[in-house]
């Protein structure tokens, strides 16, 4: 440890001898004058002879000398490694025997315990450390103390020491201690979680004289027993050691992905061992919760895995208005027998199946073969069907039963009865109903009868006293089919009225939530580690009969986690499988300290060395300045430059990306959906286009929910086109050929989902339709203008295309003219959604749409047959809606077919 000086020790005190050299250095430095400044001086003649004759060398300025000496002194002291070492924990010498608790109870504050252990190791220093952890790592592994470790090796071992999810094994630790030969000359320290366990007192006794480092058992939190409350909430309990003050802890409900869906505060009253809280969540969210976690560092004792017992079941009851009638309806009593936490829906079989319930209850329902087939599929996929017999279903045998039934009804009592009403005899052992109390007051007056020749006795879950099966059940696929052979209302029996019938229903409904194992051995499937993470189980894990599971204590051989067998899963949480928490008592006379009371060694060496170097740096700068090599202005400039650079960086960052091509006009366009057109430069033509589009925008607003702003003239390539759903491009012989930039912009517009409508002012003389001859050269102009565009292969537009019915149903697509073919992208050229990016016509649509301020049409339509203008306007609305919604309308037309095709896929 080195030399001690008033609480400060030095790791390398010999270096301090170098301080003796400082006075020598003083004289040396003082004798060495600083280098002279060199100055050219024209008036040198006047200096000559002034120089004093005594040639004593110039002295080093005293303050520079002092700065250098102090700097060197600091360096020397820093290198000697000054440190303030806290007083030793233990008197005497010899290796420190560090016993560390790493059982589940240490989980919450294991980080703090490790920190304390590191300080202990640092204090032990060269005397060495022997480490012993009290919780075994795996089943069959004996606890063993390490050899005497150097501090470095001890720290490494401590680094890999993990907290375990099971209790400390004090007896094994005792054995390990006794096996140590040189224990007597060691200094023992027990870093403990403070929880009492079997053998703890003996352990402390053997270790004595021991220093116990602990924050006490007050920090231990144990999360216990989540179950569904009666009213749908998830009830959770927290166990602690009784304390004087109330204990508050936050519990988080997590999904498998780690999302926290709810948070609840548990308060444990002073002096109490257990507090509880209820987590309320809407049922669909509650279904997603797979574990509850204590806020803070995740550890095994603070994690509660949820299994089926804590999961909600969604139940579908097949019924209708008639079936729900009070007191006589088929599902009236069944509904009341279902715990309120579970989500119940009543409806027709088809809609219920689409909802994918966990359990389907069929109270006396007649099934046709198709329905039976669907129910079979439901079973195979893991559904649970609970059937009740009844007069309706008794008329025909549909085959959906564990064992074949005899047609008809067996009347057990009453006027026509074969005898007295039957009573429940027993519930078959090994069945889900096993263990339920046999109701004494139940009278079954009528029931369906199983074909005795084909009866499989293992499928009988309950019998009447005369041995007649009354409940049949079997697993089919992953699901379960249960048949109660009596009615769901009071007509055939009063079982459904019995006080304990809800218990029967509860047992049956639980079949629908990842079934829990009922019998046979279960073993761990995924084991929880000390930090609450699930992982593969070790090879040493052993199986346990399911009946013994509730009383099992977690241990390396029986780790907490998810247990189960082929029948299902069950959660084994630490909280329910460890002894009751009790604070361990420290015998009087045993020294103890808290974790936070442990002070760490403070090292001052780096500070000394850094300060020394800083002083030397200052000295260097000052010397340079004194010699004139470093003008003050240069220093100032450098400082300013640094500030400027720093500011510049900040400025650049604040500016962010610049150079956006957005013009000021764009925000206005972006604020409102609007149509756009490419101006031709011909004022009359542009006015027609603008008025036409304005009229169509107005019409769209009038007819549909879309509200469009005023149309805008755009120049492709000069401004972004993405803001417009539809771009109208009147092409005439006068239209200039677009340049490369405009072509790229139009191509981008089409590729990004815009609709480009290209129209001419009539056609060539030999073109079709009434517009022939109105715009000679139109075709050539079209070819010229669109030559550089990536226009997909075109096909004539028919009234069967989406454009024909995207809002109105139109059979023709006239504008000012009618008859010329309108072209849209052929099927292969449309985008992924099936939408054509371009519509090409020669009908002068805007000419037909355009109306003046007074509402009068600007242009006559040709040939002017009745309805031509109306059709033109309807087609215009269709165009806009097509541009806005794409093929949505087509999809809607196909909706029934789509749903039909999607349904089985979703069910799968």
């Amino acid at each position, binding site marked *: 440890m080195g030399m001690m000086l008033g609480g400060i020790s030095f790791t390398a005190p010999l270096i301090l001898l170098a301080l003796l050299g400082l006075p020598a250095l003083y004289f040396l430095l003082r004798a060495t*004058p*600083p*280098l*002279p*400044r*060199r*100055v*050219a*001086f*024209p*008036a*040198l*003649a*006047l*200096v*000559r002879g*002034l*120089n*004093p004759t005594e*040639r*004593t*060398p*110039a002295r080093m300025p005293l303050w520079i000398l002092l700065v250098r000496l102090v700097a060197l002194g600091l360096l020397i002291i820093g290198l000697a490694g000054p440190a303030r070492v806290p007083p030793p924990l233990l008197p005497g010498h010899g290796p420190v025997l560090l016993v560390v608790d790493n059982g589940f109870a240490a989980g919450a504050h294991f980080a703090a315990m490790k920190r304390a252990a590191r300080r202990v190791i640092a204090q032990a220093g060269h005397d060495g450390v022997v480490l012993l952890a009290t919780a075994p790592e795996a089943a069959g592994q004996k606890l063993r103390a390490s050899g005497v470790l150097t501090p470095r090796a001890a720290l490494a071992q401590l680094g890999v020491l993990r907290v375990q999810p099971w209790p400390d094994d004090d007896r094994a630790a005792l054995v390990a201690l006794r096996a140590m030969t040189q224990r007597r000359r060691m200094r023992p320290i027990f870093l403990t979680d403070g929880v009492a366990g079997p053998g703890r007192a003996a352990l402390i006794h053997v270790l004595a004289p021991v220093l116990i480092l602990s924050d006490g058992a007050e920090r231990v939190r144990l999360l216990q027993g989540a179950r569904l409350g009666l009213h749908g909430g998830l009830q959770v309990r927290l166990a602690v050691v009784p304390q004087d003050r109330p204990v508050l802890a936050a519990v988080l409900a997590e999904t498998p992905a780690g999302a926290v869906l709810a948070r609840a505060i548990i308060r444990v009253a002073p002096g109490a061992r257990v507090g509880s809280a209820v987590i309320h969540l809407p049922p669909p969210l509650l279904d997603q919760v797979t574990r509850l976690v204590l806020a803070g560092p995740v550890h095994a004792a603070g994690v509660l895995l949820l299994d089926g017992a804590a999961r909600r079941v969604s139940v579908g009851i097949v019924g209708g208005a008639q079936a729900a009638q009070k007191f006589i309806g088929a599902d009236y009593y069944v509904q009341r027998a279902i715990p309120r936490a579970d989500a119940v829906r009543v409806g027709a079989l088809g809609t219920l199946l689409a909802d994918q319930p966990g359990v389907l209850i069929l109270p006396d329902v007649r099934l046709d073969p198709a329905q039976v087939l669907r129910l079979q599929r439901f079973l195979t996929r893991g559904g649970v069907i609970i059937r009740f017999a009844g007069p309706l279903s008794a008329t025909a045998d549909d085959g959906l039963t564990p064992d074949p039934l005899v047609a008809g009804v067996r009347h057990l009592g009453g006027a026509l009865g074969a005898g007295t009403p039957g009573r429940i005899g027993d519930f078959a052992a090994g069945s889900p109903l096993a263990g339920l109390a046999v109701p004494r007051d139940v009278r079954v007056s009528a029931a369906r009868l199983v074909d005795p020749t084909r009866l499989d006795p293992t499928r009988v879950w309950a019998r009447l006293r005369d041995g007649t099966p009354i409940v049949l059940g079997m697993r089919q696929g992953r699901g379960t089919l249960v048949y109660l052979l009596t009615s769901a209302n009071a007509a055939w029996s009063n079982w459904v009225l019995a006080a304990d019938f809800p218990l029967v229903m509860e047992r049956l409904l639980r079949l629908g939530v990842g079934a829990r194992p009922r019998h046979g051995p279960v073993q761990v499937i995924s084991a929880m580690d000390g930090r609450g993470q699930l992982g593969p189980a070790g090879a040493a894990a052993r199986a346990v009969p399911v009946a013994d599971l509730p009383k099992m204590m977690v241990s390396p051989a029986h780790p907490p986690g998810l247990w189960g067998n082929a029948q299902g899963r069950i959660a084994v949480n630490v909280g329910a499988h460890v002894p009751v928490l009790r604070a361990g008592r420290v015998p009087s006379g045993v020294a103890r300290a808290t974790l936070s009371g442990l002070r760490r060694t403070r090292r001052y060496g780096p500070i000394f060395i850094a300060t020394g170097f800083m002083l030397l740096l200052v000295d260097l700068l000052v010397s340079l300045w*004194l010699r004139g090599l470093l003008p003050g202005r240069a220093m100032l400039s450098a400082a300013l430059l640094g500030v400027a650079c720093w500011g510049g960086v900040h400025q650049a960052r604040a500016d962010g990306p610049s150079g956006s091509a957005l013009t000021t006009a764009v925000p206005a366009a972006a604020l409102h959906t609007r149509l756009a057109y490419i101006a031709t430069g011909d004022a009359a033509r542009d006015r027609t286009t603008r008025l036409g589009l304005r009229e169509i925008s107005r019409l769209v607003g009038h007819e549909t929910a879309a509200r469009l702003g005023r149309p805008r003239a755009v120049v492709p390539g000069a401004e972004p086109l993405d803001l417009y759903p539809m771009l109208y491009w009147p092409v005439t012989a006068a239209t200039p050929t677009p340049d490369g930039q405009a072509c790229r912009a139009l191509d981008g517009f089409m590729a990004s989902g815009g609709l480009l409508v290209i129209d001419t002012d009539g056609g060539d003389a030999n073109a079709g339709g009434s517009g022939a001859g109105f715009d000679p050269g139109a075709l050539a102009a079209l070819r010229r203008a669109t030559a550089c565009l990536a226009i997909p292969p075109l096909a004539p537009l028919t009234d069967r295309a989406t454009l024909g019915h995207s809002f109105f149903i139109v059979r023709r697509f006239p504008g000012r003219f009618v008859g010329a073919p309108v072209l849209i992208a052929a099927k292969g050229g449309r985008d992924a959604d099936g939408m054509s990016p371009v519509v090409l016509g020669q009908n002068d649509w805007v000419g037909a749409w355009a109306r003046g301020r007074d509402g009068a049409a600007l242009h006559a339509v040709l040939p002017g047959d009745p309805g031509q203008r109306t059709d033109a306007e309807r087609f215009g609305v269709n165009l806009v809606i097509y541009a806005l919604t794409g093929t949505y309308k087509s999809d809607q037309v196909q909706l029934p077919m789509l749903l039909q095709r999607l349904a089985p896929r979703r069910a799968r």
Partner: protein
Amino acid sequence: MNSRADRDRAEALAAALPALVLAARQLAGQLDAGLHGRRRAGPGEQFWQYREAEPGDSLRRIDWRRSARGETLFRREREAETAAVLLIEVDRHPGMGWASAPALASKQARALLLALACGCLALAGGERVAALGCRAPLVGGAALTHLAEALVQPAPTGAGFERGEGVLALFGDFLEAPPLLAERLGALGAGLRGGVLVQVLDPAEVEFPYHGRVLFQDVTAGGPDEDVARAEAIAPAFRARMAAQIEAVARVARAATLTPVLHRTDQPALAALARIYPALNASRQAAR
């Protein structure tokens, strides 16, 4: 001696000449504006008499206002004047190129600026200027540029001050021993008609702001360096010596009928010019 280095320095100075000429014109313009209120009629501008025009007279000489009063054409005759010659000399030795701080103008640059501004004012006054040692006086538009070039040329060896008529304007640091300076001025002979002697000094040469150990290097004569252990110790003595030198230079100058002007390069050039120009005018009046 080291004519090569001299030529290099001259070329470096010549490169800066256009800017210097411009600065000098501006400087002279400032002073001109400053003296505007009390400007006297310049030489050669004075009206002398009217004379009847004769055939062959230039039409531009006709005084139309006078002629319109009568029937005879009159010609306006001005007073005939011989313009004085301003002889300018700027010391060129290497020490002149020195400045104690980068922000200060070198003594040479400042002396040239003042010299050119004087020349500019003289030319504007219709006088002739000449660089001392050169043949012909300079007149006309490009005179100032020619003067500047002549002033930075390495001094023609062996050519002393031109013996002739003229007002002298001498610029330099005049740090040589006063007897040497007296001898130099004496070599100008009796043809002198007064003038100014402008002693341009760097502030560091006056104040001697040095501390600690300083190694002073000779830039003028190339003599040995002077290693001063504690510069602050000799500062008072140096300042006294410098004051005595300035006093001696002034005395020598007055003896040679020159008005001494002291200028420090950290002071504005205009202040010096404002003292130089009246002194020159006075000398010219006296000489006339």
